[in-house]
């Protein structure tokens, strides 16, 4: 990827994150320490230049907080279910490899959706097709085609939630079209 300059506004979340990590590691959030951390963050971002993460430039906190809470709830429920499966079913568990086509073509969105779906127990990403942005998931305890369908629905609703939080305007538009159709 080329060394294309990205605007400070797009780089800002990365810098803020670096400063937070710096403060957390020192356990010191005094202004002087934060300022030094900010200087280091800018230096690191300039010297060790990575391919830019293309953020959409918008972030909706009103959707992010409920999403995080639902995510935690899902992780808890699915962890309990996994525990039950391990004890009760064990070797007799049946699985499936499911292809889920996503709406978004953005690398960040595909990665985020893959991360969220991998963190919820019971499904993990086996393969990613970047050209068609299709995720191939391995899912635990899938015994019928209906369960495959509901898993696909769940992944797509997670993607929709992420688009509402930090998707581009075009992706939001597709989402709205889908809802009215």
């Amino acid at each position, binding site marked *: 990827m080329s060394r294309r300059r990205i605007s400070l506004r797009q780089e800002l979340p990365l810098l803020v994150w670096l400063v937070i990590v710096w403060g*957390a590691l020192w356990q010191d959030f005094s202004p002087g320490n934060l300022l030094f951390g900010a200087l280091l963050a800018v230096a690191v971002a300039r010297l060790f230049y990575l391919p830019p993460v293309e953020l959409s430039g918008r972030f909706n906190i009103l959707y992010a907080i409920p999403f995080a809470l639902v995510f935690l709830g899902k992780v808890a429920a699915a962890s309990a279910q996994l525990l039950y499966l*391990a004890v009760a079913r064990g*070797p007799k568990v*049946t699985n499936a490899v*499911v292809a889920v086509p996503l709406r978004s073509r953005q690398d960040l969105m595909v990665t985020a959706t893959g991360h969220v779906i991998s*963190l919820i127990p019971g499904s*993990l990403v086996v393969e990613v*097709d970047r050209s068609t942005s299709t995720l191939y998931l391995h899912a635990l305890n899938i015994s019928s085609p209906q369960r495959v369908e509901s898993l696909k629905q769940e992944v797509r609703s997670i993607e929709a939630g992420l688009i509402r939080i930090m998707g581009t305007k075009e992706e939001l538009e597709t989402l709205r079209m889908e809802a009215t159709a």
Partner: protein
Amino acid sequence: MNPDRTSPDAWVDMLSAVFMIVGAIMSLGAAIGLLRFPDLLSRMHAATKPQVLGLFLLLASIGLQMRTWWVWPVLLVAWIFQLLTVPVSAHMVGRAGYRTKHLHRELLTSDELEAVVQKAAARAAREDGSDGGRGD
């Protein structure tokens, strides 16, 4: 034991005790799953996932017991790094496992990746010697 059961301290102690026990049970679940599940891919679920919740609960109980808010950012950063790295390692092992056929096909109710892999393999065979092999 603390005789004063209504003080906030007692409640914090109780909450962190519950968190610690549930967190430990989650790690136990991972161990049981690792032993009982039949193939690599289903073991990956047990090996990587319940700790996300288990670590969260254990870190939360540490935070509750330390009783200073300076420790919370470190715990949060530790958990976020866990969130960022767990799916990557699961994906790498899962992908390698699928490609080296460390899975029991008879346990899969459907496999929507196999046809894609077959097609790609057939195309790679056709383009033998050329610079093919990568998906477009």
